[in-house]
């Protein structure tokens, strides 16, 4: 790799992590009172907010209603000040639309949509600070928000990114590692069943290495699950104390 050494000979990455190590994750559920569900997550310096409204009646054209399941509507936007260079528009650009579609695909696989026919579930995610792995942070925040809204899901959806440098798979890429331009893989996993809700890879990677990278991403996603599970349990415990149960 020219210029920056992404993985030192001792096996440390630019920010001092080991290859399979995640950045620090902190999360909170129930950030806003007006929404049906909301959550905030920090993964290193990447910060994302997710808000869920619904299930509610279809807004706008009735023709969009699905007779057998709920419509999952996602919008991804990233604050104009979130990136290093200022963005001109928070949403509506090509990348945001694509992210919205990916999120929708991910959550259609996880939410038990058939329980709410002819209704709509809105998931809005907002990236406040982007430092790599925005898709993963958005999925993780949205999972917590959907759980906070009490919408039935098959399982948690836990996402993590992975890359490949010097024959080693790196989990949870930071912005510096993403910008270096190596292969990148985004994975959304349903950890209990091990099923994959979304898999996307860009740049080329030899087929023989794919399994290794996939394994690294899946392991990291399971670690994320452990952390998210802890956040949910903590939240429920606090809520039940407040309710006086």
């Amino acid at each position: 790799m020219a210029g920056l050494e992404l993985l030192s000979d001792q096996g440390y990455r630019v920010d001092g992590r080991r290859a399979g190590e995640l950045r620090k994750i902190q999360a909170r559920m129930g950030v806003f009172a007006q929404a049906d569900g909301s959550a905030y997550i920090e993964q290193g310096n990447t910060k994302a907010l997710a808000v869920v409204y619904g299930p509610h009646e279809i807004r706008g054209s009735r023709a969009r209603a699905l007779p057998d399941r709920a419509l999952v509507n996602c919008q991804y936007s990233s604050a104009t000040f979130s990136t290093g260079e200022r963005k001109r528009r928070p949403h509506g650009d090509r990348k945001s639309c694509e992210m919205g579609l990916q999120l929708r695909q991910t959550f259609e696989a996880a939410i038990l949509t058939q329980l709410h026919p002819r209704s709509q579930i809105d998931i809005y995610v907002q990236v406040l600070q982007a430092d790599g792995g925005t898709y993963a942070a958005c999925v993780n925040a949205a999972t917590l928000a959907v759980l906070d809204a009490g919408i039935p899901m098959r399982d948690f959806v836990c996402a993590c990114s992975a890359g490949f440098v010097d024959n080693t798979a790196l989990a949870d890429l930071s912005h510096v590692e993403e910008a270096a331009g190596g292969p990148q893989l985004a994975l959304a996993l349903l950890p209990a069943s091990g099923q994959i809700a979304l898999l996307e890879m860009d740049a080329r990677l030899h087929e023989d290495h794919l399994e290794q990278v996939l394994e690294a991403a899946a392991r990291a996603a399971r670690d994320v699950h452990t952390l998210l599970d802890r956040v949910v349990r903590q939240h429920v415990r606090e809520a039940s104390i407040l309710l006086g149960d």
Partner: protein
Amino acid sequence: MASVALSEAEKVYIVHGVQEDLRVDGRGCEDYRYVEVETDVVSNTSGSARVKLGHTDILVGVKAEMGTPKLEKPNEGYLEFFVDCSANATPEFEGRGGDDLGTEIANTLYRIFNNKSSVDLQSLCISPREHCWILYVDVLLLECGGNLFDTICIAVKAALFNTRIPRVRVLEDEEGSKDIELSDDPYDCIRLSVDNVPCIVTLCKIGYRHVVDATLQEEACSLASLLVSVTSTGVVTCMRKVGKGSLDPESIFEMMETGKRVGKVLHASLQSVLHKEESLGPKRQKVGFLG
């Protein structure tokens, strides 16, 4: 804007309460809700602040970028405002739904900052006619629970207070070509003086009286309101009537007086909070959205 549906009886209850100087949440007519202010919440901006006023939640990020000064003001930098009404606040803002409100708020911000005294724009000039700092003030609406304008102004002021612009020097060699040198020390930066930055006080006319810091429910009972932008010394810099109803001139003067009185107190308490937070320095525990 996010709205609530109120029945006739609920409206009467609120209006009668206001007449007795007692509001639904126990406040008097000139009381603000509890305000939470935190600065420096987004680390990749030049300055940022998050303000929470009741259920209204605003995040402001200020980014300093280098650009060329405007032709009519060759030795001044300038501020650019952008308000993003995100779908987080209400599903109505999805897609382009929040653009109208966003533009309205941004225009109001342009108007209240459109005077020489509010921010020292000359300090943003690097070399006349060629380079200046542009401060992009981006407002992000995360939740709206009434009184948007006041909250946004508090947040903008706090973010500008927090803004640190790197110090640059212009070096000129013999041939007259200029070179811009950035200071090596990351702590060597210029700060803006925000003492004269005005804050908006919105006064909502409800029945025969007016209230400050109206909640969504109270806004639904009010036909017209007056935005008064006041500096810390009580000088009115801008005024605007909003809403579909009409106001009689006498009540406008009354509202202005209230606005000045309340505005002064608001500025004083905001300054003290900002200085207190500043004095804690880098040791301060950042709460952000986790608290």
